[in-house]
């Protein structure tokens, strides 16, 4: 097994606004991910999850600690190396309105990363891949795919198009932040199945969610992130069945569930 991602003692502190106190978004956070493995990160807004995902791609400089992506230390990577590393990863942002370029058509926006990396000569192949992915995600309506993102897509459709855009380069590491928050219960399952099929082919995944049921469905192992720290780390089934930390306990207790009579 090769270690794809290794985060060691990562601390990220943002300077306070107008001389205010600095904000610590992540505090001594460590985790590692093998090829083909997936990990659920259970965290709510303000837990530091977005900062974590952005630091893994080198968009946020760490205050302390280190991130190693595919064996390379991000801090010492050159700009070119960093680009090469990022091309092997993909991220799905929490906000579907910010994750797709609104002025392109749906098809163009899914193809865009492919064209940037492989060039205009391979447009045909990119289009085929994009169409395949979109169809897999339940978006096969030709008129819809050829209309502008801004005018034609609902939040849920945007989110699915964003997933297709993230998968078009066949990433080795997928970082997703609540990728199903705007989906109906039935499509949520479909999307997880699509992601897991790719995991079977060797993709690793970091799946961020606040929903413990979803976390259990997405990955066998999970960490609970609260105010920038990992408060509990264990099997996701275990987290649900017997949470140890007070925060995890509150989370489990508050989780809406249908239950059995």
């Amino acid at each position, binding site marked *: 097994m090769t270690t794809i991602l290794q985060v060691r003692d990562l601390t990220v502190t943002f300077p306070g606004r107008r001389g205010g106190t600095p904000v610590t978004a992540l505090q001594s956070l460590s985790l590692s991910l093998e090829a083909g493995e997936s990990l659920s990160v259970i965290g709510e807004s303000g837990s530091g999850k977005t900062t974590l995902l952005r630091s893994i791609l080198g*968009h946020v400089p760490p205050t302390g600690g280190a991130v190693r992506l595919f064996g390379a230390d991000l801090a010492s990577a050159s700009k070119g190396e*960093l*680009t090469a590393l*990022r091309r092997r990863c993909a991220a799905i942002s929490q906000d579907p309105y*910010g*994750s797709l*370029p609104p002025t*392109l058509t749906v098809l163009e926006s899914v193809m*865009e990363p492919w064209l*940037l990396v492989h060039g205009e000569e391979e447009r045909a192949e990119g289009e085929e891949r994009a169409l395949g992915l979109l169809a897999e995600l339940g978006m096969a309506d030709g008129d819809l795919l050829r209309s502008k993102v801004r005018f034609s897509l609902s939040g849920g459709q945007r989110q699915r198009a964003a997933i297709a855009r993230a998968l078009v380069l066949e990433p080795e590491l997928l970082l997703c932040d609540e990728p199903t928050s705007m989906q109906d219960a039935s499509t949520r399952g479909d999307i997880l199945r699509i992601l897991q099929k790719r995991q079977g082919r060797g993709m690793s995944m970091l799946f961020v969610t606040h929903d413990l049921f979803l976390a259990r469905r997405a990955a066998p192992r999970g960490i609970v992130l609260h105010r920038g720290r990992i408060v509990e780390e264990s099997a996701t089934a275990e987290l649900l069945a017997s949470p140890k930390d007070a925060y995890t306990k509150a989370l489990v207790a508050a989780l809406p569930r249908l239950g059995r009579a």
Partner: protein
Amino acid sequence: MRRRTLTRRWSFWCLVLLAALALFGGRLFSAPPDAEVAAPFSKPFWLDRSLPPTVTADLTPDAPSAEIPWSWGAPSRFFVAADMVADAPGRTILWTKPGGRTVEIAPLKKGVERDGRDMAFKRALGLPPFADGAASLLDERGTYRLSVDGQGPWEGTVRLRLDGGRWGLFGTDQRGRDIAALFVAGIRVSLLVGIMATLIATALGTTVGLAAGYLGGWFDSAAMRLVDLLLSIPMLPILMALAAIWGKGLWQLVLILSIFSWMGTARTVRAMTLSLRDTAYIEDLRGIGAPTAYILRRHLLPETLPLLLATMTLGVPGAILSEAGLSFLGLSDPRVISWGRMLHEAQTFGTFTAGAWWMLLPPGLGIAVLCLAFLDMGKYLEERTDPRLRGGALS
């Protein structure tokens, strides 16, 4: 809800009409707009029916006589000029009164001119020096006739003009130029200056705004300080100084106006770029090595485009007004006819002492209507591009 289509806007049709006038309006007039066609300060023809109109008649070898029905008092001026290739010996220009009496005006020679105010002409007519030549030539009501009489070949045009004090739709200015023709010629300048200055300003503002917002750093600070500086300078004195230094040509004016009107666009575009720069998809594109030029061209520019369209149409009235203002102050090329220039001349040459309000109203209202039309167009485009201004369904 009724759909707000372009063709339902008054401003659209107004602009179409003005543009058509700017392109083809010159054909409505036989003379060029700067030609003197009637007496100075002639009133519009519909204004005072008791005044004699301005009458012109051309004689050629094919039509060697013209009839002039006259039922008013004397005109202010009687003027005949011969535009000949060569002298025509044996031929004379004759003036026949309704009663049948004929007066010989002049022999038909190259370059001959007779004006009812000339001493020599008055003497030739047998009038005392202080008499009015025109009054003596048109002293009854009926049909007069001007003709070329005698034998021998001739080639050219004999032109008669009776300045009655009324002319055309809008009258004439202090030099006897047709105000309607000047008005139509002015549309072209106003539109040209307004649109060109705005286009250049928008291009400049967009470039600076995009670069400042996306690149940030020292360029951003420098560009924004420049914007602050330009905004804090009182515009009119600077425009006046620049017009004095660079000259008063039309293109200098366009350049001056564009240099001082790109700052608002730059600020807006910068603000928009700043908010878009850190969106997830832009960050991702940067991450996988998309060139900056690609991101700017493919994403940021199209995103700001609807906004630009609206600010552009809203910017045109500003440029038109600035042009009019500068021209009004006399800081424009006197050979270029524009509405501002017309106002300037109206002001300088005594609209008020002459009571010639018709010199003032057409350019003034023209500027107002053109600006309002552009503002309405801008509002329309804003409504089209901003979904919040349209009605919509609940989610």
